[in-house]
């Protein structure tokens, strides 16, 4: 792309070219300059003036990251971070702040922020942060996707098969057919039969793989 001697950090197309930067800052000049800079570097960008505007418009299935001004009016950056956590939305967040207090930084990082940048910051630093965030987002989404497909497959099991599978997940140390049969009050042969069906339906080769899938325990899924 560049044939000059001045390399500039650009969007990492290898990670994701479909990810979006969601920029929230109440200062119009900051929004304009940042969106222009990031556009120039090939990023897709959506800007919002307030946290509420963002929450109204945001679709969690959209991959990307949040560049969030700390000192927003009404709902500030930290508060938005809390709201997102409550809604189980795990979009990576990069804080930018004119305050830069130690306390705010610590709290933001505790909340899972990628970084906390004090204004004014260098563009390279921000771009690096965004790329990191994108990578994190992509990995998280992939893991979530795997888990979701496992859950879909798990859902296909019969009631008895689910019971056997849950017992094995809950008691990984006692997975012999005898033990399971005694516990569930069925014959070891029936247990063997169920086990074979479970491995077949879950498209896995061993009980160990089933435990790795970390299907939530039954109590959580009964609701």
């Amino acid at each position, binding site marked *: 792309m560049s044939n000059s001697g001045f390399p500039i950090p650009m969007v990492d197309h290898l990670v994701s070219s479909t990810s979006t930067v969601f920029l929230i800052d109440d200062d119009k000049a900051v929004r304009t300059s940042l969106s222009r800079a990031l556009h*120039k570097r090939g990023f897709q960008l959506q800007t919002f003036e307030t946290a509420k505007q963002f929450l109204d418009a945001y679709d969690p299935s959209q991959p990307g990251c949040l560049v969030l001004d700390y000192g927003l009016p009404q709902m500030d950056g930290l508060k938005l971070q809390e709201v997102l956590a409550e809604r189980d939305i795990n979009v990576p967040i990069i804080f930018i702040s004119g305050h830069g207090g130690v306390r705010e930084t610590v709290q933001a990082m505790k909340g899972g922020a990628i970084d906390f940048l004090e204004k004014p910051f260098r563009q390279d630093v921000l771009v690096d942060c965004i790329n990191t965030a994108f990578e994190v987002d992509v990995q998280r989404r992939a893991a979530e996707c795997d888990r979701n497909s496992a859950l879909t497959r798990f859902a296909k099991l019969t009631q008895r098969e689910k019971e056997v599978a849950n017992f094995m997940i809950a008691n990984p140390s006692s997975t012999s057919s005898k033990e399971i049969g005694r516990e569930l009050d069925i014959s070891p042969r029936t247990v063997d039969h169920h086990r074979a069906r479970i491995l077949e339906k879950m498209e896995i080769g061993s009980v160990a793989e089933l435990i790795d899938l970390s299907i939530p325990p039954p109590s959580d899924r009964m609701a």
Partner: protein
Amino acid sequence: MRFSLGFVLALSLVGLQFIAILIVVLTTYVSSERAMLTHARDLMDKAGTNAVEHIKRFLEPATENTEQARRVLTSGLISVTQPEEMEEYFFQLLLTEPQLSGVYFGDEDGNFVFVMKSNEVGPFRTKIIEVEGRARTIEYIWRDEDFNVLARSYDPNDVFDARTRPWYTAARQLGSRIWTNPYIFFSSQQPGITVAAPIYGEGDTLNGVVGIDLDIADISLFLSGLVVGSSGAAFILSDDGQVIAHPDPARINIRNDNGTLGFVGIDDFSDPVVRAAFAGFDANAETGAQPVRSSFDYNGEGFMTLLLPVPDIDLPWNVAVFAPENDFVQSIKDNRARNIWIAAIISVLTAIAGVTLAAIILKPVRAFAVRTSLVSQGEVSTDEPLPRTYKELSAANATLIDEIAQRRRLDTKLQDLNRELTHVTRVNMMGQMATGLAHELSQPLTTISQNLDTALSVAKMDATPNEELISILSELDEQAHQGGDIIRALRSFVRKDKGRAEPFDMLELVEQTKRLLRQELERGQVTTDIQINELPMALGNRVQIAQVLINLMRNAIDAIVMADSPVRKITISAVPLGEMIEVRVADTGPGVANNITLFKEFSTSKPDGLGLGLSISRTIVEAGHGQLWYDDVQKQFCFTVPCETQ
């Protein structure tokens, strides 16, 4: 008008003393007057009784002699038909008692024998009238004390008939002994009285009547010798209102209209005092045989009277006594006037003594008061020796000196805190303004640096990059970031200067900040309620925390004043909460409006506020590892400060 303590003391003393002396004088006077008057009554009673006894004794011989003569003449021991025997017998009777002035006998036929004391020719004179048929012989015989005849004479013209005389008719009619009314003897012009008794012969035929004349002028003589006070008197008053005897005998007899002599009536008595005392005297109404005591005023002078009936005699006589009260009480009356003067003089003397004494007693007190005021004004040191004074004042002085010293210490402490606060506030204000400015400046700097970055990348992406432009843009970018660095340095300005954390007493600090805000509290008519009990020592920068407290309290006062709340109270409470102390400042104002962004620089609801107070306070509290927040529910500001752990 204010009086000095000494003056009031002396005046009250004198007043009380005068009243006390006066009461003693007057009660003494009243009781002694009463005693004297009682005594006077006794004296009068005694005089009256004395007079009564005297009268009874005076009249007794007449009664006895009459009885004796009656018995003698009735028994025939002396024959009533023998004038010579009777004359001798009567002569003997006259000699026995001086008050008898004459003894006589008259019979039914007109015969008459009369022996009397005489002033002329001889001391005794006998008059004998003998009747034989129609012939009458009237003979006068004068004798000496030894019954010797001194002279004889006859008076054929005498027409005296005893049978017509009142004493004869009365005795004859009643058939028993009688007394005549008192009368004035014609011959001697002396008052007298006659007692007469009928003499019966055989077959109860009346032989005649014997009579004895009694000279009662002697009673007056006796009365004149009777002492009733210094100017009182006693006299005899008959039931029909005639004055029978009086110390001044000249006053009692008058010449009647028909030329005869008689007694003066009480209503016509020449002594006006006696008239006033007993005029309108009515024996039946007034005495009834009982003594009558009374008193009256004449010419403004008090008099006492006593009316005493004379018992056991056949005469309706009463002893009347009167005396002016002053005879008895004049001396104590004089005393009373003198005593009041003495009381006044004593009071004045004690007044002078009292004032002098009070002045002497109060001198050390006054000196103490002067010194105390000088000490409190700081003109005299508390170390100056105390002037000689009382033990109580010395103790009070010690307390006072302690108090002053303590107050000075407190004032000094408060002044120190105030001075430090002023400094810290200024520093914090500058710091916070710097922080605020840094934030505000960071926005445009961000824009500038971003745009420069973009411009730089655009320039670099050119086919033939303009090296000069890139260099200029790079320099600009560097400068923008330099600006950013300066801002970051500014930002940490406040945080760097936090001072050292030291243990301090939160309650004491709250009390001190309250005192610092006293004027503002009073102006806003706001009261404070401090609810702090047992607390561990707080750990932090005392002056910085004071600034937080002052800021919160000032906000509370402003809120109350701006809303003009009916209840105007700020409540400051503090409780230990684990390793922290939580302080709450509540006010009766309306609470924080929703559109105010608390803790943000330059955001304020006050017309002349900078909007830095709360953000500074939060910075201070957080720098000391505490938190500052607004409790939406209870509408109060809270902050925490670490406390000393054992």
